[in-house]
């Protein structure tokens, strides 16, 4: 009868939970702290920059891929999101809106990512700190 949960299971779960939740919390704090300066939504296809859109201008970009697939990236109220996509799972559409530094939306099937990148990250962070 080895079905009983062992002590080490509980330790394992607790340690991983603490580390992961800690990392997640740190991430959120870091995001907020570095979301200063001018923000861009950077669209990448296969890792290469396709377009860099300023987050303070409402726009709509249709990314058309060679194989006929597409993603529509919209920027509205300083938030970026994918409103429509040709991929089967639509995870990218469900990912919702992003606006903070380093946040990312990914469409794995189309190999498209949208990342928020703030310029002058360091300088701006220093200004906040001082």
């Amino acid at each position, binding site marked *: 009868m080895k079905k009983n949960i062992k002590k080490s299971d509980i330790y394992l779960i607790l340690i991983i939970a603490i580390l992961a939740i800690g990392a*997640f919390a740190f991430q959120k704090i870091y995001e907020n702290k570095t979301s200063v300066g001018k923000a861009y939504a950077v669209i*990448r296809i*296969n*890792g290469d920059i396709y377009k860099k859109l300023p987050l303070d201008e409402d726009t709509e970009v249709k990314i058309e891929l060679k194989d006929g697939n597409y993603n529509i990236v919209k920027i509205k109220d300083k938030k970026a999101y994918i409103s429509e996509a040709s991929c089967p799972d639509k995870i990218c559409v469900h990912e919702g809106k992003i606006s903070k530094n380093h946040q990312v939306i*990914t469409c*794995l099937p189309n190999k498209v990512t949208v990342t928020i990148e703030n310029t002058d990250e360091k300088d701006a962070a220093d200004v906040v700190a001082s």
Partner: protein
Amino acid sequence: MNDYKTKKNALIGMLIALAFIFSYIESLIPFNFGVPGIKLGLANIVVLTALYVLGVKEAFILSIIRIILTGLTFTSLAAMLYSLAGGLLSFLLMMIAKKTDKFSIMGVSVLGGIGHNTGQIIMAILVLNTAGLIYYLPLLIISGLVTGTIIGIIGGMVVERVKNYGLNKE
């Protein structure tokens, strides 16, 4: 001995079919958390069971065949690449965790869930050549922890019931 082998092969075949069906069921469930890579991992119940009831080699074969079959049918070849990365890392961690004999099936399953999600995101970083995807890691680990725990509880119940299926080598 031969009888044992035949029985075992039949069981592996059945378990592959079962894991395959679980993958299909999972593809039907709209389990969409808006984060790429988050999955319930129903098929891992079968892999876990095989790991405990049959052995490392058999569970490994089952896991790989299931991923290939699923990639060829319900998902896509591209998705298969992520599943393979996730499946391999997950299996490696589960195998090591089980070998240490420090954890019950619950701990093994938790490591499997985390390994799966981590393997997938590593593959995504390589395929998309975008290091920024590491952003998802904390969330993916939390999700792997939760799903791994659930699958571990179910897997433990299954193993309790099938372990005396007349397949013990002794």
